[in-house]
């Protein structure tokens, strides 16, 4: 209460943005003859100490009428955990079918600063909503999904470690959580942990700092299944890699399951020790590729159904075609449409409505994947001149990049074949059609071209 009164006084003297950045960050605890202000970190503490403490003290003494009253600044937080339900809307005109489930904070997998009871220490950080049941399978992730189910179902799997790799936002994390959840479903007492590599590193640093390294080692080496996401973040962190190497060996020797995910094939991971890369390949390595249009549409329909919405065919294909870079973007587009419908109390979704709800995103995409930009990016990649894209030359070194640029234009823009032909030096639409077919054929037969196409696709869409 006293702190709120102090803040009201300070609001007359200090700009809003400073109040919000530094002073509102403090948690106040009032005790006899003193106000304790707890700062979340040393930076906030320093700023408050240097710039605002004398004014806080002045107001606190005036308000309490006690010249001996003290204000003490320290690092810490006694803020209670986030409440189970977020603040109620200011206006209550829309009754939502509870889009946000009650918050259930995940327990920490490892707390290096405070000893925790064993039961809590093995809290797994798994998201129970990410299961195989709500993972949409398609051509792009079929193998990864089948292998994940196999690992989740069988403790004695030969796919150990299971290494899942692929671009960002394609479902690797979902599969990892699904594996963890399946293991717990079949073996409720199993000690399973899902952790980001960066988190593993930070926990290890804290454990070293707090002289609790033995406990840290024991913790990770006694698991039944270890799932580490974004393993590429181990790069260059030698001590963490060393510790992970021993953890990996211990778990493998004990026939415990290890599931790893990364953005690259093990061999291509920069800054990771060779002995680790070799071990990553001991089990099974599977790739998740960008979902094709049909899979994207299936994902959309599943998500829409979960939200109680039926998407017409034209709408789901439109969103699926336009939001193709990753599933996060695709989901984001759908969530925006749903939010807009709820706000406007609309129950039937139409193309016009979707185009209006997503107009800013679509405009931004059009800017990124214009045919002019595709020509520029492809020309730069193959080290040819942009003018070569429009030239008559049929030389392979120029013709192949041109065909790829045409195929990308067909895939990424809404332009018709004649429009694409016009853009590429006034060519006929049959030439564009031939280019698209040729590239599709080469992508199947030539892994190098397939890789180049993917890189260009990612560059243009991420």
């Amino acid at each position, binding site marked *: 209460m006293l702190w709120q009164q102090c803040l009201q006084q300070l609001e007359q003297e200090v700009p809003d943005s400073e109040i919000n950045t530094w002073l509102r960050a403090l948690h106040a605890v009032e005790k006899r003859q003193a106000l304790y202000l707890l700062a979340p*970190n*040393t930076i906030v503490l320093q700023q408050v100490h240097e710039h605002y403490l004398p004014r806080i003290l002045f107001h606190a003494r005036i308000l309490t009428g006690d010249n001996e009253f003290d204000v003490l600044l320290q690092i810490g937080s006694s803020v209670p955990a*986030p409440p189970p339900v*977020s603040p109620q809307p200011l206006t209550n005109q829309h009754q939502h079918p509870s889009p946000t489930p009650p918050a259930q904070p995940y327990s920490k997998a490892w707390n290096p600063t405070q000893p925790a009871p064993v039961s809590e220490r093995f809290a797994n950080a798994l998201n129970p909503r990410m299961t195989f049941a709500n993972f949409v399978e398609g051509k792009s992730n079929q193998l990864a999904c089948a292998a994940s189910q196999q690992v989740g179902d069988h403790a004695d799997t030969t796919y150990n470690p299971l290494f899942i790799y692929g671009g*960002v936002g394609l479902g690797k994390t979902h599969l990892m959580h699904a594996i963890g959840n399946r293991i717990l479903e079949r073996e409720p007492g199993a000690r399973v942990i899902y952790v*980001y590599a960066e988190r593993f590193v930070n926990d290890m640093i804290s454990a070293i700092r707090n002289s609790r390294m033995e406990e840290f080692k024991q913790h990770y080496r006694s698991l039944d299944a270890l799932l580490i996401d974004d393993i590429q973040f181990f790069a260059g962190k030698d001590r963490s890699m060393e510790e992970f190497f021993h953890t990996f060996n211990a778990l493998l020797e004990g026939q415990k399951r290890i599931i790893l995910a990364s953005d690259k094939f093990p061999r291509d991971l920069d800054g990771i020790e060779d002995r680790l890369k070799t071990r990553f390949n001991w089990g099974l390595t599977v790739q998740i590729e960008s979902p094709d249009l049909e899979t994207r549409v299936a994902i959309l329909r599943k998500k829409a159904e979960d939200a109680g919405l039926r998407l017409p065919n034209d709408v789901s294909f439109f969103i699926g075609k336009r939001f193709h870079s990753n599933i996060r973007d695709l989901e984001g587009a759908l969530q925006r449409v749903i939010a807009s419908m709820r706000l406007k109390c609309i129950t039937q979704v139409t193309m016009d409505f979707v185009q209006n709800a997503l107009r*800013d995103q679509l405009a931004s*995409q059009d800017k990124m994947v214009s045919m002019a930009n595709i020509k520029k990016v492809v020309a730069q990649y193959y080290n040819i001149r942009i003018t070569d894209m429009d030239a008559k030359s049929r030389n392979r070194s120029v013709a192949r990049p041109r065909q790829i640029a045409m195929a990308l234009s067909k895939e990424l823009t809404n332009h018709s074949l004649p429009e694409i032909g016009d853009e590429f030096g006034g060519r006929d639409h049959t030439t564009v059609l031939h280019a698209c077919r040729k590239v599709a054929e080469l992508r199947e037969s030539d892994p190098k071209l397939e890789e180049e196409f993917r890189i260009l696709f*990612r560059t243009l869409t*991420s």
Partner: protein
Amino acid sequence: MKQQLTLNVGMREGHRFSSFFVTPENAELLGILKNGFEHEFPQIFLWGEAQAGKSHLLQAYCERYYQRGLMAAYVPLGSCAQYGIRVLAGVEGKHLVAVDELDAVIGQRDWEVALMNLINSCRANHQPLIMAARMNPREMTCVLPDFSSRLLWGADYRVHPVQGAQCLQAMAWRAHQRGFELSEQVMKYIERHYPQNMTTLMAVLDRLDTASLTKGRKITREFIREVMQKNANALPLKQGD
């Protein structure tokens, strides 16, 4: 005659939804925010030109939490980036996290890793996260693709700037909020002499407000001419004026 001293207390409008001028382009976003974005998305990303009102909206959102006795961390990276990633320490203990001016750190690996961890942590703990930047997240040249794709986890909205004729409407609305009205004659004078952008018009309004309070006079066309002649160097007139 002695001049009346003005108190800054009267000028304080605060960062609240009620002090944000809502154009039709931003109406949907305002609706989502006022209803609580966390009912729809785990996180929300606001983007748009400088002066569009992104910082205002982020702080207004924090204010919602303060009003309920909850804690929010507001981190404007434009001014806080200089302290390094340690400035983010402890924010996960708050009920809401608001990270403003993301452009200031995009392209710096240590910042992108720190922010990616923050996004992961907020998501795991069901902690609402609101972020803002000038650039559309799809067009940001991030070093880490993992971070870049996480910016789109939830929804992104453009904050449209107040433009053209809307600027004059916004100025009249703001004057009304401060407790005085601008007559049609005064508005016509301003329209004729000053460029229609919010920065200039708000500066004009501030001068008029202060001068009117100091001199204890009503704002008329004559008064504005007088005040603006004195401030001719500080406030750019329309070209050709």
